[in-house]
């Protein structure tokens, strides 16, 4: 008996079927975003506003302990990139709750579609929602004096795509488990501040006291920020970068496993 026949007998999907399904869900989610031009506009303007309104404040710090002279944007741009990745991913949970309430998820769960594909459709859309504004920030930043290092830049996008994926899968899992917009909003805004502050996104943690720096080491995003700064500066082959990829890959796997499990069990 041939392989495909046995897969059919047990009801398991084939790899090509899985890829097609992921593509179909990705397209569905991308259309969902394109139908809401507001999100596209704020998605693009917010990071640029950060550059325009926050970066001038940092200029007066140039030459201080954390900022080598003339490299304010080199420190700040990777921070904004991490922020965009976090925001692009964490938005995934809201539509999940609407889809639970309207029965869309229940209907999709009765189809033979892979639950992992269902999750990855959203994850891939969110990666696009990070990458496009991210590219705009790099372009605008470069115009304002950020030094682009091409070798590091590609890896920077890969690293932060992993962070987006982890945030997106986590947000979907939270939405499926909490089921209420209010609860999801409370959890997401509740973790956002400590996570971003303890990652040294806006201001490097090296400015803070020892206890703050120690605390930062328990935050997975801290490793992403450290690696992102290193990559943005063009230093690719460092332990910081390796550790950043290792931590991001681990939390992405964990979050995708959690999100898939949540889709397997989801009930309105």
């Amino acid at each position, binding site marked *: 008996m041939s392989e495909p026949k046995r897969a059919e007998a047990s*009801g398991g999907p084939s790899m090509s079927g899985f890829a097609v399904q992921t593509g*179909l869900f990705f397209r569905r989610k991308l259309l*969902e975003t394109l*139908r809401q031009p507001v999100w596209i506009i704020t998605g693009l303007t917010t990071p640029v506003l950060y550059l325009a309104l926050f970066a001038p404040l940092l200029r007066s710090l140039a030459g201080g302990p954390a900022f080598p002279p003339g490299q304010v944007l080199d420190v700040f741009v990777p921070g904004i990139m991490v922020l965009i990745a976090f925001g692009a991913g964490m938005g995934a949970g809201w539509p999940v709750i609407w889809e639970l309430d309207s*029965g869309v998820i*229940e*209907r999709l769960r*009765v189809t*033979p579609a892979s639950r992992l594909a269902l999750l990855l459709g959203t994850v891939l859309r969110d990666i696009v929602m990070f990458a496009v504004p991210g590219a705009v920030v790099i372009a605008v930043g470069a115009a304002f004096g950020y030094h682009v290092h091409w070798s590091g830049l590609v890896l920077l996008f890969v690293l932060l795509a992993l962070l987006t994926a982890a945030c997106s899968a986590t947000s979907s899992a939270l939405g499926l488990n909490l089921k209420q917009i209010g609860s999801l909003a409370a959890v997401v805004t509740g973790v956002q501040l400590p996570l971003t502050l303890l990652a040294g996104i806006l201001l490097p943690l090296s400015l803070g006291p020892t206890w703050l720096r120690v605390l930062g080491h328990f935050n997975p995003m801290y490793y992403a920020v450290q690696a992102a700064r290193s990559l943005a500066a063009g230093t690719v082959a460092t332990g910081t970068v390796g550790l950043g990829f290792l931590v991001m890959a681990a939390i992405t796997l964990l979050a995708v496993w959690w999100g898939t499990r949540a889709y397997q069990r989801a*009930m309105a």
Partner: protein
Amino acid sequence: MSSPPLPAVQVSGLRKSFRVAGATIEAVSGIDLTVAAGEIFGLLGPNGAGKTTTLRILTTLLPADAGSALIAGADVFRTPLLVRRRIGYVGQLGGADKEATGRENLLLAGRLYGLSAADARRRCAELTAVFDLEALADRAVRTYSGGQRRRLEVALGIMHRPQVLFLDEPTTGLDPQNRANLWEQLRLLREAGTTIFLTTHYLDEADQLCDRVAIVDHGQVIALGRPEVLKQRYSADTIAVAAEASPAVLEAVARELAGDPAIASLVVEHGTIRVTATDATRAMAAVFCALASKGVPTRAASVARPTLDDVFLRETGRSLRDTGTPPVAAEAAA
């Protein structure tokens, strides 16, 4: 090649309980039933009777605590993916993506079941024609009326030509015209060979649409069979004939009628003869004959057919119409 005639649905000893606020509630407590291929089968019962929970178990959405369930021979618990390929599902919530167009919804559903892009387009054209959705196909579902959305949702459930179509309270919230329309579509589907398994709390839906009905209460099947058989088994037609005659004359008529095989029992009250009939037509003729032989003119006559509510009443002591737990909440929580 014809496949062996497997039952469309085979359920035995199905049980499911939920923990709600520290207490264990048994939503399904030992359901057994078999649905033949090509039937329209209905689960009739009040809200909270366990209908939706049963449907969710059969459609692979919920695990059961005990029992077995086969859909066209495929085990719901061991081979859920195989079951998913064979069934269609139209839930209470509908499940159409409201921001997408009807066509996008249909094409996605078709592709997820493995249709090629071309096959999905063909099938979509076919179904939009059958369900009268062609003019709406490229509009966002959010702009559809309730009846239009329900038609789309049924179309979504049958894109892949499932062997068994499950529908949870399919006509709730529909006006009478849309309701009749949907019944007609379901009958056409059955004629095309699809088995239909639905839940309802409407007596007339179970009675007129379903070939066979299982009446459920507190997670158990309390009566199962063809609606007309159930009604005859548990209850009978009642005839009332009002006549212009003295009580003494009517008593004489009553004596004459006693022993007629079509009449189960007979009482006279307030100038009206009330008959519980085993055969309404013959009993009616017998009453008219007896009255005419005494020269008594009749003023009014009526026949009341038994309903499935009489069956429910006899089994539970309650009327289905009175079991008014808040809609949806009781079962949606489950």
